[in-house]
């Protein structure tokens, strides 16, 4: 079984790294939480199922100087590739344990289905899950509670790994552009503005989206808080929130690996990932570039080229 194989590999890896990151059960049966394995015994708590939603690679840049192992899904592996392109991690220091993924769940969607009842027990069959609550049990097709990113996912099998647990899988629903983007593209500029104003008005500036994003690297110097330069004040007006999100989106232009963590962690359920996904579509069109797919690629925003693939300003 995958978990046994996973444990075996993790223990193997632990021999020459300080720490391996995987998943364990969280505070209830519907939530997993990251597991930091430093000792053999820790590995006993490892799990692997569609609840393992977190992008654990987020921790890698801050551990740049240590030797670590990390368990990744297909989508998470793109973050590693992006890190490598941006020189944020050292490949030799990271042991990548890849697991081909059949799609994870959106806890938020599941909770909605079970009407936010406290969860007693969760079990998985091949393509469905059964959730037992005090009020009874409910079986859901996993596909129906996929987060947005699984619907557009093109890389369910990790693109980079040292170990692969299980057989490579492929599923591609042929969905290039997520539904929300399609709907937004159909709207007028004013309608779009109104949409985002409504969304961002809810933002409480908790910065969970920023903190969860593996590619937000500014740490304490984030423009949301610095005074030098002083771009955004601490007032809680829509202007400030809007500005923060615009800058967040622009800083992720051509870098966002679409892991969806920002949207997943937002306590206010704001689809913050959508802006970045849309910019990525533009980046693909303009620069022929998709983030986190090939470690040899050069991110277009980090290079200075006279002419780009689709921007022939100088005709040379």
């Amino acid at each position: 079984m995958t978990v046994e194989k996973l444990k075996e590999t993790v223990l193997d890896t632990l021999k020459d790294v300080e720490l391996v990151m995987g998943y364990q059960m969280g505070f209830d049966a519907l939530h997993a939480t990251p597991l930091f394995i430093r000792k053999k015994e820790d590995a006993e708590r490892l799990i692997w199922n569609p609840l393992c939603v977190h992008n654990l690679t987020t921790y890698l840049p801050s551990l740049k100087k240590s030797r670590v192992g990390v368990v990744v899904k297909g989508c998470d592996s793109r973050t590693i590739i992006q890190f490598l392109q941006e020189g944020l991690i050292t490949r030799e220091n990271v042991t990548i344990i890849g697991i081909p993924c059949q799609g994870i769940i959106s806890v938020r969607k599941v909770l909605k289905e079970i009407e936010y009842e406290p969860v007693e027990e969760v079990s998985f069959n091949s393509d469905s899950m059964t959730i037992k609550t005090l009020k009874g049990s409910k079986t859901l097709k996993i596909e129906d509670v996929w987060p947005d990113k699984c619907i557009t996912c093109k890389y369910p099998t990790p693109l980079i790994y040292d170990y692969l647990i299980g057989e490579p899988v492929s599923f591609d629903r042929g969905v290039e552009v997520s539904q929300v983007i399609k709907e937004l593209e159909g709207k007028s500029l004013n309608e779009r503005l109104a949409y985002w104003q409504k969304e961002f008005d809810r933002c409480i500036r908790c910065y969970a989206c920023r903190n969860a994003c593996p590619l937000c690297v500014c740490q304490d110097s984030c423009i949301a808080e610095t005074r030098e330069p002083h771009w955004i004040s601490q007032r809680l007006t829509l202007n400030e929130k809007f500005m923060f999100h615009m800058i967040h989106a622009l800083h992720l232009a051509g870098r966002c690996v679409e892991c969806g963590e920002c949207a997943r962690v937002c306590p206010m359920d704001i689809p913050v990932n959508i802006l970045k996904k849309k910019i990525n579509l533009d980046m693909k069109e303009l620069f022929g570039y998709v983030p986190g797919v090939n470690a040899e690629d050069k991110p277009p925003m980090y290079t200075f080229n006279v002419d780009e693939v689709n921007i022939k300003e100088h005709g040379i």
Partner: protein
Amino acid sequence: MRVGVFICHCGNNIAGTIDVARVAEETRKIPGVVYATTYMYTCSEPGQEEIKEAIKREGLDRVVVAACSPRMHEMTFRRTVEKAGLNRYFFEMANIREHISWVGEDKEFNTRKAIDVVRMAVAKVMQNRPLFSSSFKINKRVLVMGGGVAGMQAALDCADGGLEVVIVEKSQSIGGMMARLDKTFPTIDCSICILGPKMVDVAQHEKIKLYAYSEIDEIKGYVGNYQVKIRKKATYVDWSKCTGCGACMEKCPSKNAYDYFNFGVAPTKAINIPFPQAIPKKAKIDPNYCRQFTKGKCGVCAKICPTKAIDYEMKDEIITEEVGAIIVATGYSLIDMDMLPEYGGGRYPDVISGIQYERLLNASGPTAGHIERPSDHEEPKTIVFVSCAGSRDKSIGIPYCSNFCCMYIAKQAILTKDHISDSQSYVFYMDIRSPGKGYDEFTRRAQEEYGVHYIRGRVSRIYPKGKKLVVRGADTLLGTQVEIEADLVVLATAVISNKDAAYMAEKLHISYDTFGFYVESHPKLRPVETNTSGVFLAGACQGPKDIPASVGQGSAAASKILALFSGETLESDPAVARVNINACVGCLKCVKTCPFGAIKEKELRDGRVVADVIETVCAGCGVCTSTCPCGAIQLQHFTDNQILAEVNALCLI
């Protein structure tokens, strides 16, 4: 903070369409402004005195001048405030002339706009920090790129001025296009006879080092201290042994190599010396044609060479030179004949280009100076010249004039008559452009003394008829169609920039226009400077130009460098990027984007890696500041906070 604002009338230039008194009045209300006044000509000596006095009298510590573009007088006023004891960066200029009074007519609107612009400048100046330049030592050597007439002149003038010069010439010999010409207008003196001595001077000058058949691979550094990687391309002949005897060329069995020097008028050998006066006069193998390379066996030249100079295994060699300034004199190219299908360009052998004709006229050319038709080697009697072949033609993307064709056509027509006395030349032209000294007289002489028939109009089609070519065109002066049966047609093909011009510009960090010609710092007042300090322009690489103009620019560029190098050190511009190491997260994105390679990584004592700007290399372009996600790298004098202060002054009130 005590800000003083000086609003200039500029005679009527500003005061004519801006109520300057009202601007002063409104300015006095801005918090921080303690003094505001108007003055007729602020840049005049009394105007500057007024500023100095006000600084003392009013105790000003910041100054704003609302006047013309900072490109005109920013330096003047910086010096003024410095003389009065302020740091020169405690000064801001509000451009209310070029940006307002000259472009808008509505006085009320202009006045309001001027008030806004002054308010922004005040907000900025209050955020300014004192900046200090540092001085650095310079390496007084000069790199000249391109050994055409412009580059040679520049090199000789620099060397005569005592500077060491390195010339990098892409082709096998120096001389450029001028070495290919027969005679030169307007004096009809033999081109190589006047150029040859200069070439020899270059070769013999003890301060000049020449790398022929070489190219620039990489340029690093900044004004005063460049490191240049030069690629000496493999010639397959050891030039330290080659005596230029030409024995190899005589015996080489590969007789169909393309002759770049002669623009393909006739084929040449796979191993060749381009022309008798070549400098250096050394042989080179063209591996595209050499049998040793194409067939893997031959070795004739190796056997024949008396000094055993042939080396089929030769590889490119990279040499690094250190210099302090660069003169770019890479010249120009001509469009391919294929671009002119309506004239039969590239299709009919007897339709040739002006430069090919120049080679036919030339006594050391492939026909030894006999004019003959490429098709049957017969002497042509009727010759038609077509000017503006490609030039001034928007449809092929060349809207500009190629500058010297009108003149060389007149020259070639005159020479034709000298060579073949019973010949008749026709010139189709749009206008005759001959504004130089003695130029108009020259074109007139072609018509009046040499009987060259000038037809004002464009050629619509050229097609063969038997052995002849029918040139059909309009005569717009007579309002008729004309048809001339010609033996030979010469097209004055348009001048274009070199293929690698834009690519070289990127390496040099200089600007180029849409056509690939390099852009000078100011079209009138800084014609040989570029916007990158330390890099200068000379000759046709900046735009089509004849020999006198190219030589003039070569000398001008040299004089600029002699002035630049007159001291031992240079002052750096402190308005460069600086890293706040407390905010820098060491992502090094800036290092990757800086087009000048001005940023390197630095390890702090605690092991943290941050970015570090080399002050002298930074050109102040600001690319890094927009790359840095956390605003850790800031362009001094243009920091985010300073710009935000301006934006706020404009938008928040």
